């Protein structure tokens, strides 16, 4: 019997008690992580919370009702915010994926004059933080009369150095023979791109989509600059502006927050495997 086998077996024997302890510690931590969410939802269901909050916090109200939710939906056009957010996130992500894949393919498999220098130019944009260029970008939006419109939240984010870089790295791993064979068969580069390269890129595109959706959905700085019409607010911007104005009615304020947060969390939990692998793959924070 090998020594390695012995180590593995002895590990298994001592494991039950230690497993229990480890899962216990981690579960306590997980409860701490969940507590603010649970408390928010519990309080949002309480009508008393609008009059006086209990001095000792409770997770479940004595008078559960959806009253605060109907008030929240009447006070604020939350459905509108959701529509705006979906339009902005959908359009910018679709564009970002298309342009990332197009440029990534050209830089990975194309041979053309200026390829190196153009690629370096794309990479250079990675070291320019958004905060550095947002003021002239805001003035530019004003000049081309896009400010205070949803396209202002979309067009500046259609292309990014990160997407180009990620797609170039991924497409480089596709064998040249596959593409060369298609060329010999007479396929154009566009046909090759849409029929062969894009279907093979799905894992990378999914990762990129996850990251971009998180970035765009959660962004507040840029919408804050270019959007002033309340009908054009995104969910995040609406929450930032209105989350406080309901302040004296704690129940209503937390119902508003719940409406803004929980549906998104549910979608993310359903997609969690994709999201976690995407974030690990990109190595970039959401």
């Amino acid at each position, binding site marked *: 019997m090998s*020594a390695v086998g012995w*180590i593995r077996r002895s590990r298994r024997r001592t*494991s039950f008690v*230690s*497993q229990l302890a*480890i*899962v216990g510690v*981690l579960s306590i*931590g997980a409860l701490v*992580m*969940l507590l*603010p969410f649970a*408390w*928010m939802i519990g*309080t949002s269901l309480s009508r008393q919370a609008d009059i006086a909050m209990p*001095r*000792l*916090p409770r997770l479940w109200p004595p008078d559960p009702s959806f009253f605060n939710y109907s008030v929240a939906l009447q006070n604020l056009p939350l459905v509108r915010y959701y529509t705006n957010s979906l339009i902005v996130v959908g359009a910018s992500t679709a564009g970002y994926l298309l342009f990332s894949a197009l440029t990534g393919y*050209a830089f990975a*498999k*194309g041979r*053309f*004059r200026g390829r190196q220098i153009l690629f370096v*130019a794309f990479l250079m944009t990675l070291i*320019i*933080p958004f*905060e*550095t*260029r947002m*003021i*002239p*970008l805001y*003035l*530019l939006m004003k000049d081309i009369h896009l400010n205070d419109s949803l396209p202002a939240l979309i*067009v*500046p984010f259609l*292309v990014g150095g990160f997407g180009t870089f990620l797609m170039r790295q991924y497409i480089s791993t596709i064998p040249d023979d596959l593409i*060369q064979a298609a060329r010999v068969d*007479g*396929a*154009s*580069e*566009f*046909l090759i791109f849409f029929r062969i390269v894009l279907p093979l890129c799905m894992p990378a595109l999914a990762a990129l989509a996850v990251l971009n959706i998180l970035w765009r959905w959660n962004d507040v*700085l840029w919408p804050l600059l270019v959007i002033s019409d309340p009908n054009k607010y995104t969910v995040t*911007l609406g*929450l*930032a502006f209105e*989350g*406080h104005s309901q302040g004296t009615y704690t129940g209503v*304020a937390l119902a508003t*927050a719940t409406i803004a947060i929980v549906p998104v*969390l549910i979608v*993310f*939990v359903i997609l969690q495997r994709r999201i*976690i692998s995407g974030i*690990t793959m990109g*190595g970039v*924070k*959401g």
Partner: protein
Amino acid sequence: MDPAAPVPGPEAKAEVAGTPAPPALSPPARAPRYGALGRSGAFAGGGRSGLVWYVFVGPAFLLLLLFVGYPTFETFRQSLYEQVGTRQKFAGLTQYTQLVHGGDLWHALWNTALLGFAYLVIVIPLAVVLASLLNKVRHGSAPLKVIYFLPQLTSSVAVAIIFNYVFEPDWGLLNGTLHRFHITSTPLWLADPRLGFTGSRAAVTVLAVWAGLGYFMLIVLAGLQSIPVDLYEAAAMDGANPILIWRAITLPSLRPTFVFLIVTGAFDAMSRFGDLWTLGGPGGSPAGSLQSIVVFLFQTGFESGNMNRAAAVAVILFCLMLFVTFASFKTVLASEFGGRRRAR
């Protein structure tokens, strides 16, 4: 763009001119075979002019020039001007000297550094401990992972809204829980601008740790799982105890992970905005204690309306981030080539 459209190359020009191309350049057999599909496209990868690639890259490049290149250049240019009446006047480094001599920039930089440091010092060790435990869990680690990751999927604004109520001094979740344990003198948290463990800066640090922990755990977990199992088995056979194994194998193997987390964490801390703005507004209230450098940039440009001064702040922020980038590159390169090579 029609994919089938032939891209004009040198050969196409020759044909338009009516002179048949010499066989060496364009073998006659090829023209009928590829006809409508576009010759230069079909062979662009093989060393011909490859103009089709500019169609792939061109539109993206133009967007990049317009929305990244031009604004970046403009930030630098505008930082050298000042507004006099209705027109812009060249002012040299006036904006910078006034920023450096005033106290506001330093206050914002100090706050940013302080909040960033406190955040990383707490979140990284905590993430290492929890990820090490999570790595040992054999069954049921997936739900735990999702729960720790949930706040990461919530926007910084939403997190700030929740914690605004969690830190409410009279009935908030935190102080209310303290009341439950009969602790009566509870801290003011977000209403207290003083430096310390119960002030507004401590509160936003707790908030940031809660929000960021899942991401840090995920990256540490990926680092832990990339350490080869044979290393541990070899050490166990040599009779090393768990603490020695942890110090001699786990920690050194996690070095690249730490560098990565410190760098991304530093970038996050430097561009922190959403939660601080939601809680403290452009002034970083109470008493400016929550004013980070980006909040200060926002306040200068859009509350005080001094775009040129704000551009100078943006340039300073850019230089600081560039410095961190290069410093981290140097660290990474030194660890890759300077020290012994690590098994990854």
